């Protein structure tokens, strides 16, 4: 098993093995130190003892010197042989005359093969002075071996003066000393060393055996002690797999009990958090209804059940009429309130087993299970009735809410969840087209079916394009009106088809209908950042704008994704301008707020697209966290002829300047328009007059009203 934690892989190790390993390593270390200490101490003790024994043997020197003073040398020689045999450490005994000449060398078995060398004069003098001394011997160590010693001593006799010893006093008696010769004893203690090393080896073996036993016993004991911990492995594995509703086996040990308790608390907290996250992931925070993500899952499940049980279901796509009016006139808070009321009515209108979700904006989806087409029609009518009965009072005004309902009835496996939603959406559009506040059923025959087929075709093309790099960007220049320079381009998405490039208005409805917008947004971001990387050499200062849908900001990982792209391609965030709709900027949901803040931290700049068409309140400009205002083209197209548009554009330009924002005018198609924009202090111009979108950023040639014609980026 090679689990990973973050980026660092590690090899799995047994705690028991590791603890025992450390224990044994420490024990072995202590053992080795002990053995070394034992060896050192024993060696020292042996050396001290050897010297002590040598001193003891020194007292035997006179005994060994018996040949010098015994009349019968034979007996003494035998005695000496016995003496040597008694002590295996004695290698050889040698005798020297008083002048240091070697007389004889004897070993255990008799005369030694090698006779000791004669003593030099200096040594003879030194030894002679020892005769009668308290320590009448010399102990020398062999230079070549620490285990070999030589004991040397003089042999002498003493006699007392005077006949009869009548006044004998042992303490003060003076004696006459007569030097007879010298004796040396060669001692070899290497046998002790060998014996000691053999015992040291035995001790090491015993130590190893004890370590082995310790290992086995320790392993058994630790495994037994850690058995409750091991029993947690299964539960922990299930926890790691995502299962939060767990019960951990308890342990009688205090420590393990504390761990189990902590784990229980943790899983409980995880379970609660999971439930909360699950709720957040599946519900709309504003209305409390399920969200689109959950809708897809429920719908797919319902399709599966429908197939299995051969039952009928119906899907309502509900779009509130006049919601935009309430929102625009009374503010988004009022709009939110209205949405909450509508959601409440929808819940009242259906059975508990039915499913209600907010699809987005003022759109709701209702899934009715086990319902016939006629029953579905009744329910739809009931919803319309309930909605009609809803009165919303805001700022002294009474609003009657109405809605349009598109119904897609299904049973079996003919359509996918996305297709059913698209069918219901299409029916809802039909209801709106037929005058609103009504119900329309999707018909598989006729125009709806054809539209549906077209949408599905686009959906398939888009999916293929996303998978096979079938999307590309074109770049439309933004002219800096004052300087005439072009360093800023808007990246526009194009879908490659067998008939040529297709613009977004053609395929985006299908993308929205079939839930592909988030993927398209990510694809666009990647294409833009990659393009900035490609243009690094040819257009090092170029800035690219890109449009993102509101779906992109529903993705919590948007900021992280942009950061990853910038890091991957080494592109500065300052070269990227992200355009968002006015509605998204103004409503500024909590999640959107976080994503925008993160994008600004990366250096990205923000632009509000189509400004003036949505919430036309200038007060919003004070708190909008954006760098550019793109004035909606509806104010620009007729600018030279429409005084209202002129006033509007002039005013927007002044307010934006005051707010520290730069302004961009879209749909600039004439020199007159450009001249007016320059007059009103608008910063950038974009449109066919400035330049059409091209496959690569191209230089533009524009006749500026106050500048000479020039070629610029």
């Amino acid at each position: 098993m090679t689990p990973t934690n973050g980026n660092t892989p590690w090899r799995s190790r047994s705690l028991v093995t590791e603890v025992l390993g450390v224990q044994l390593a420490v024990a072995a270390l202590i053992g080795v130190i002990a053995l070394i200490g034992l060896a050192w101490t024993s060696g020292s003790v042996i050396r001290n003892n050897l010297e002590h024994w040598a001193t003891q043997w020194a007292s035997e020197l006179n005994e060994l010197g018996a040949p010098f003073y015994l009349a019968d040398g034979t007996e003494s020689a035998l005695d000496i042989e016995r003496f040597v045999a008694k002590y295996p450490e004695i290698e050889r005994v040698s005798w020297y005359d008083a002048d240091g000449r070697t007389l004889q060398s004897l070993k255990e078995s008799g005369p030694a093969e090698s006779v000791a060398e004669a003593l030099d004069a200096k040594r003879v003098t030194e030894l002679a002075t020892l005769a009668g001394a308290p320590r009448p011997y010399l102990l020398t160590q062999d230079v070549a071996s620490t285990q070999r010693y030589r004991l040397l001593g003089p042999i002498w006799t003493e006699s007392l003066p005077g006949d009869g010893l009548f006044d004998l006093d042992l303490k003060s008696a003076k004696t006459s000393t007569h030097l007879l010769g010298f004796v040396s004893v060669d001692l070899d203690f290497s046998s002790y060393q060998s014996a000691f090393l053999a015992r040291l080896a035995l001790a090491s073996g015993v130590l190893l055996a004890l370590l082995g036993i310790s290992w086995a016993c320790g392993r058994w004991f630790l495994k037994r002690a850690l058995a409750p911990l091991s029993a947690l492995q299964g539960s922990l594995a299930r926890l790691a797999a995502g299962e939060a509703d767990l019960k951990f086996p308890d342990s009688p040990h205090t420590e393990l009990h504390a761990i189990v308790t902590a784990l229980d608390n943790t899983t409980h907290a995880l379970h609660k958090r999971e439930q909360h996250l699950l709720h957040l992931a599946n519900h709309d925070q504003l209305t409390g209804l399920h969200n689109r993500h959950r809708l897809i899952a429920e719908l797919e499940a319902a399709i599966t059940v429908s197939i299995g049980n051969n039952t009928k279901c119906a899907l309502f796509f509900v779009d509130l009429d006049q919601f935009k009016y309430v929102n625009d006139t009374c503010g988004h808070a009022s709009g939110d309130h209205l949405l909450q009321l509508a959601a409440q009515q929808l819940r009242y209108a259906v059975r508990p087993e039915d499913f209600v979700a907010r699809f987005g904006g003022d759109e709701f989806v209702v899934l009715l299970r086990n319902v016939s087409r006629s029953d579905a029609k009744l329910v739809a009518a009931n919803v319309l009735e309930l909605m009609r009965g809803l009165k919303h009072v805001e700022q002294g005004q009474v609003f009657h809410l109405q809605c349009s309902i598109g119904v897609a009835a299904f049973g079996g496996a003919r359509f996918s969840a996305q297709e059913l939603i698209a069918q219901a959406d299409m029916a809802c559009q039909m209801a709106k087209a037929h005058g609103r506040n009504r119900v329309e059923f999707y018909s598989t025959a006729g125009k709806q079916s054809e539209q549906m087929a077209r949408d599905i075709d686009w959906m398939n093309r888009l999916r293929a394009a996303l998978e096979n790099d079938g999307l590309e960007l074109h770049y439309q220049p933004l002219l800096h009106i004052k300087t005439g320079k072009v360093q800023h381009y808007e990246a526009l998405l194009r879908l490659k088809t067998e008939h040529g490039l297709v613009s977004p208005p053609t395929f985006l409805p299908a993308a929205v209908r079939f839930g592909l917008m988030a993927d398209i947004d990510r694809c666009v971001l990647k294409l833009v950042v990659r393009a900035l990387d490609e243009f690094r050499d040819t257009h090092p200062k170029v800035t690219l704008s890109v449009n993102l849908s509101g779906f992109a900001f529903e993705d919590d990982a948007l900021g992280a994704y942009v950061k990853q792209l910038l890091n991957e391609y080494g592109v500065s965030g300052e070269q990227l301008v992200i355009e968002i709709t006015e509605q998204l900027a103004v409503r500024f949901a909590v999640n959107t707020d976080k994503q925008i803040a993160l994008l600004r931290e990366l250096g990205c700049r923000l632009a509000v697209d189509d400004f003036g068409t949505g919430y036309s309140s200038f007060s919003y400009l004070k708190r909008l966290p954006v760098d550019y205002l793109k004035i909606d083209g509806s104010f620009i197209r007729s600018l030279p002829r429409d005084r209202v548009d002129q006033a509007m554009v002039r005013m927007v330009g002044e307010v934006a300047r005051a707010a520290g924002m730069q302004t961009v005018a879209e749909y600039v198609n004439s020199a007159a328009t450009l001249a007016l924009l320059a007059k009103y202090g608008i910063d950038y111009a974009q449109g066919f007059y400035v330049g059409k979108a091209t496959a690569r950023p191209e230089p533009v040639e524009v006749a500026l009203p106050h500048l000479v014609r020039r070629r610029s980026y």
Partner: protein
Amino acid sequence: MRHDGRHRRSITTSLAAAAMLVIAGCATAPPPLPEALLPPPVAITPEPIAPPALTAPAPRPKPVPVPARRDVTVVFDADTVSAAATAAAIADALPPQQYRIATVDSKNLTAPVPRSQPAVVIAVGRAAVDAARARLPGRPIVFCQVFAYEDVLKDGGAIWGVHSQPPFELQLKTWQAIDPTLRGIALILGEGRSVLSAEITKAAASVGTDVRFETSHSDRETFYLFKRLAAQVDGLWLFPDNRVLSPTVLRELLSYANSHNVGVFAFNESLLRWGALASAASVPADIAETVRLVAERVAEGKTQDLPAMTPLRAAELHVNPAVAAALGLPHVVEQHWVARDPD
């Protein structure tokens, strides 16, 4: 190389003896010695003769012949402290009515004028004997406190001796009284002690003990021999043979004997503190009395049946009770007494 065990003389003693020989005209071709090295001559002063009584003349009785007092010179070993005391005791033992006594140490002995030649020379200690022979040649000598008497006697001449050791039989009986189990005794002597050995053997036989003699040539050999005898005997009888003993060997020997449960019967009380079981020493009064008897016979010329060596009759005995207890002889109570040979 063996120690020959021959007696030694101090330079002073030798010079003094040579000087006396020169004075006496007996020295043969002695090397001339400087005058300063010679000891001052000591005149042997005869004891003053008692003056005649000054009473009124009475009718002159028939004169009774008063025996003439004999001159006796007591020479003692100048290097032996106890010799002076023994000499004094001898002088005291000799009746002044019969003897004119002159006491002198061996170093200061000079040859007297011919008319004052002593009738007997009593020599206390070996050095005194040598001095007497050298400086008073031809004079009969009675000696005592000489262990190596055989060496003295072998040179011949008019010389008789008194044993320096207490009676052997008395010592053995005492030892047996201390240690009733005593059977085998070791005795180590230097060369030339055959007469002494024979006397000891005779005494041992009379008390039923077995003495094993060993002849040693040095102190080391003495110890060596004893170690080999220790397992075979019950006791060691130490004799003061200075040639084969040394303080070191005496200590080792006594230590070894104690560790091997061998009782040592010593010749000197001082050895008790080193581990001897008991000691027997001669009694000065006994020495003096015995010397007097011998000297009288010599002076009277009654020497036909006078033995060369006259034994003593008493012994001063000491026992070490601690050693006795260690040897398993707890019944020893008396530690010091004087015993006399009943004969």
